[in-house]
C-alpha cells in the first residue's frame, strides 16, 4: 500500500478531524443505546421479579413503596404481595455497607406472622470462595434464616452474642448479611409489619 499523505496538524484540520470522530462515535452510541434500552430494562425487571418470586410465597398482585431505613441513610424498597386480596408477605430490598468489599444488596421476605420466608442476594462483591457463600447458589448458609422470627432469633453472629452461625473464615460477610437483614426487619417492624 502506498504511503498516503496525512493532513497537516493545522488548527482547522485538527478541529474538523476531532469533530468528525466524536460526532460519528456519538451517533453510533446513540443508536446502540436505543436498541439496548428495552432489553436492559427487561433484564433488570426479570432479576427483581426472580428475587421476589424466591423470597415471597406465591402472589398475584404486588404493591411497592419506598421507606427510609431505620438506621442508615438510604431508603429501602418494600414489595407487598397479595393473593386473592389477602397479604401473603412483604419483601424488603435492603442493604449493608459492612461487606468485606463495601455495600451489597439483599432481599428479605417476611410473612405476615413475622417470620423470615426467604432471603436472596441481589448483588455483591464479596470474596469468591469465601464471602460469596452468602449466595444460595454457592452454599446453604443463608437457609438458616428461613422460617425464623427475628424477635426470638437474634440477627447477629454467635461470636457477637447472636444466633447466626457465621461462614467459616468469612465472619465479616456473615456480619454484613445479618446487618442487612436486621435493617430490613427493624424498618419492617417500624412500618407496622408486626400485627
Amino acid at each position, binding site marked *: 500500500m502506498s504511503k498516503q499523505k496525512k493532513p*497537516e*496538524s493545522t488548527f482547522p484540520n485538527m478541529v474538523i478531524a476531532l469533530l468528525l470522530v466524536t460526532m460519528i462515535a456519538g451517533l453510533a452510541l446513540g443508536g446502540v443505546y436505543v436498541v439496548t434500552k428495552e432489553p436492559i430494562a427487561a433484564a433488570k425487571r426479570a432479576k427483581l421479579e426472580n428475587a421476589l418470586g424466591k423470597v415471597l410465597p406465591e402472589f398475584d398482585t404486588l404493591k411497592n413503596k419506598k421507606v427510609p431505613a431505620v438506621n442508615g441513610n438510604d431508603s429501602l424498597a418494600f414489595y407487598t404481595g397479595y393473593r386473592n386480596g389477602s397479604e401473603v408477605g412483604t419483601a424488603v430490598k435492603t442493604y449493608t455497607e459492612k461487606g468485606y468489599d463495601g455495600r451489597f444488596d439483599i432481599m428479605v421476605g417476611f410473612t405476615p406472622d413475622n417470620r423470615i420466608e426467604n432471603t436472596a442476594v441481589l448483588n455483591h462483591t464479596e470474596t*469468591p470462595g469465601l464471602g460469596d457463600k452468602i449466595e444460595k447458589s454457592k452454599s446453604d448458609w443463608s437457609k438458616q434464616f428461613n422460617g425464623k422470627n427475628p424477635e426470638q432469633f437474634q440477627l447477629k453472629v454467635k461470636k457477637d452474642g447472636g444466633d447466626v452461625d457465621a461462614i467459616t473464615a468469612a465472619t465479616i460477610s456473615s456480619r454484613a448479611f445479618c446487618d442487612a437483614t436486621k435493617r430490613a426487619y427493624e424498618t419492617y417492624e417500624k412500618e407496622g409489619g408486626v400485627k
Partner: protein
Amino acid sequence: MNQWQNFTKGFIKDNPVFVLMLGLCPVLGVTTSAINGLGMGLATTFVLLMSNTVVTLIKSLIPVKVRIPSFIVIIASFVTIVELVMQAFLPTLFEQLGLFIPLIVVNCLVLGRAEAFASKNDFISSVIDGLGMGLGFTFALTLLGAVREILGSGAIFGWEFVTGDGMLVFVLAPGAFIGLGYLIAIMNKFNKAS
C-alpha cells in the same frame, strides 16, 4: 512476515500477557474463574478488532497531533457498545465483569496495538493483528482463570470436581500474582526452547 505468522504471534511469541505484559489490570482482577477470563478476553478481543479496523481505515485522515485523542474516542465508543450489549443480553456475565468492562478503555494493549500497529500497517494486517492479539489475550486470561479456578475452587468452567474448599489463596488477589508469575516462567521456558 506472512499473515499466518502475523495472526499466531499473539498466542506465544508476542503474547500480550505473558510476553508483552500489557493490560495486566484486568488479567489479575477478573481471572477468578475460567469463564470470567474467557468473557473478559472475548470482550477485549472485540474492542481490539474493531478499534484496529477503524484506526487503520481512518489513519490517513487524522492529523498526527490529534491521533491519540481520536483513537481513545474510537476505543471508548466500542467499549461502551460492548458494555451496553452485554448488559442487555448477558446480564449474568455483566454482573461478574461489570466493573472491569469500562477499564478496557485504558487497557494499554488496545491503545498500544492501535498506535504501534494499526496506524502504520495496511487494512488486512491490522485486522489480523487485532484478532490474533485479542485471541492471545483471551487464551492467557482463560488459562490463568482455569488454573486459579482448579486450584482455588476445585472446579473448571463452573463444573465442580472436588467438593468443599480448594486452596483459597488462588482465588484471592495474591493467587493472581502467583499464578501469573508461574505461567510467565513456564512460557519463557517454552519460548526459549523453540
